[in-house]
């Protein structure tokens, strides 16, 4: 690493002056005190912010949680803000879990494949391009992916995938129809596909870091035993990198759980179970986006906050798991832009 020490120490005008005229002990003591206090206060404000988020969400949702009980709230299947004023968050919990786990399953192997390809096969220039493009996937705002999904992906999927499958099932396996659901294009399947694209960069980034940290000797040893390139990767590299792969997958899951706009624009927004594969559904973030601005009843507002609190708890668990794994396998980096 090249650091321009010259400009930062010798070249600095203040430093040269300090060398001529050292500051008084009081100035140094006072300055250091104030600096430490300010810095620690700023740091503590982040702790307060994270803790405050939990407290605020719980406090605002407490009316709903008290009325239905926490377990009753997360297991209740009726969400009726209009007539009965009964709120159960299970449909959204279910939608969130199903879409994010399915998205992770879809994206897992392609994401790892990209990491293996860029780390082991691709020439340097190609790896750099692919790397930048993968990072770009994470950088594209989720509303941009959402507008593309609304006007391009959903109609295309409806005409070329959902409708053919639906008509086939209608003709030969009518029992499948309730599982498939209404093939209008906006629904669980479309949202899951978009989600699986959006979470690829996180698995890829951590997997690639883990692969890069596998010692060269490990590869050379299995090469020397006569392994083909794939066998080297399969037997010497991937087992070594499994911690990073796992951490990346869990981080991706966390992103999928919290992904809001693209899902809200594509999932169709239906608050009642049962959900079906092609049919509309809802997730916890999507219901907050859709109803929060229009919520008038206090209990409705409080229930949406309680949904937020539930989302907080789930995101917390997933993030702590990812943090634990990253630390346990001491993976460095892993920062997606």
């Amino acid at each position, binding site marked *: 690493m090249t*650091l321009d020490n010259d400009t930062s*120490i010798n070249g600095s005008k203040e430093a040269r002056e300090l060398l001529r005229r050292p500051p008084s002990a009081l100035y140094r003591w006072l300055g250091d005190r104030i600096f430490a206090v300010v810095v620690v206060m700023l740091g503590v404000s982040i*702790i307060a*912010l994270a803790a405050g988020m939990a407290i605020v969400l719980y406090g605002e949702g407490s009316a709903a949680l008290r009325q239905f009980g926490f377990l009753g709230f997360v297991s209740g299947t009726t969400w009726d803000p209009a007539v009965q004023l009964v709120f159960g968050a299970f449909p959204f919990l279910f939608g969130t879990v199903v879409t994010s786990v399915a998205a992770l399953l879809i994206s897992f192997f392609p994401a790892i494949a990209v990491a293996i390809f860029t780390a082991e096969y691709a020439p340097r220039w190609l790896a750099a391009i692919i790397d930048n493009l993968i990072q*770009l996937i994470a950088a594209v705002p989720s509303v941009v*992916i959402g507008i593309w999904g609304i006007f391009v992906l959903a109609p295309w999927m409806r005409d070329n995938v959902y409708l053919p499958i639906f008509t086939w099932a209608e003709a030969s396996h009518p029992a499948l129809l309730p599982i498939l659901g209404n093939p209008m294009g906006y629904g669980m399947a479309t949202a899951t596909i978009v989600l699986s694209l959006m979470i690829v960069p996180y698995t890829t980034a951590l997997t690639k870091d883990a692969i890069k940290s596998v010692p060269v000797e490990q590869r050379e040893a299995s090469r020397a035993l006569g392994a*083909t390139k794939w066998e080297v990767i399969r037997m010497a590299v991937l087992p070594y990198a499994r911690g990073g792969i796992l951490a990346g997958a869990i981080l991706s899951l966390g992103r999928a759980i*919290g992904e*809001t706009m693209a899902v809200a624009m594509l999932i169709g927004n239906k608050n009642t179970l049962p959900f079906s594969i092609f049919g509309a559904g809802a997730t916890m973030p999507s219901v907050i986006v859709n109803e929060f601005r229009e919520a008038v009843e206090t209990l409705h507002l409080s229930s949406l906050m309680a949904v937020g609190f539930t989302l907080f708890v789930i995101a917390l668990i997933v993030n702590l798991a990812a943090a634990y794994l990253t630390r346990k396998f001491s993976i460095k980096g892993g920062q997606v832009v």
Partner: protein
Amino acid sequence: MKTLLQRNIRDRIMESLLVLSTIVVLLPLVIILVHVVINGISALNWDFFTQELGSPSRAMQGRPTGLVHTILGTVVIDFLALFLAVPIGMGAGIMLSEFPDHKLNPTLRIMNDTLNGMPAILKGLLAFVLIVKPMGTFSGLAGAVALAFVMIPIIARTTESALMSIPWSIREAGLAIGLPRWRVVLSTVMPAARFGLVTGTLIAFARAAGEAAPLLFTSFGNNYLPNHWLGMLLGPTDTLPQRLYSLAISPYSHWHSMGWAAAIVLLVFVIICFGTARYLTRKKT
């Protein structure tokens, strides 16, 4: 025991599968970029940058509409958020890197990672409770606070790693010439780490600029320019991501193409930020 031929065939198959997967992952990105440009470029005209949106009838009657109020609102809210987030984020980063023995550091690191992993929409809810409720109105200020919540953990994390990458000998040199600790940090370590600091801030800025979820119920949105110069901070304000969402789910085809155009503007902005960040990272190493 498999023969060498079988093993070599397997090797080739796996290699082509890897290439295929890479293409499958990157293809949608290319398709998205192409569609955004094709659909939005026609609505990107002079009016887009100089007129306000107004009511739907304005677009249907063919009168000029645009998103000038949105672009202005985005600039105001994003920079205010940056202004709020940089001191807190950098302060926390300095605490983690320059006071490594502080007993709150493990807690701070966990809390910061937690905050970073929290869905942005929850940060919007937090800003709603903290700012919108007491103020009694949706406001650009609340939107800026929500976006600051998005930026803070990213800045803290990148600041920490940027400062950590500066060797301890630099700090020791500073202390040896008689600098107090705080001058060592502010006048030698931070200037030496400036590329890393700017990169982290750019990343946080770009990430927050693309967020719509926390803005929906903080800055809310507005079809018009404010009629008062503080209107952007104290009243409902438009921002690009949130306006893009509203345009996309609206029933007017003219608004749809304006939504695509907004997507181009947003994409170009985000790509410039990330491109600069990548360039600076490369320059640093």
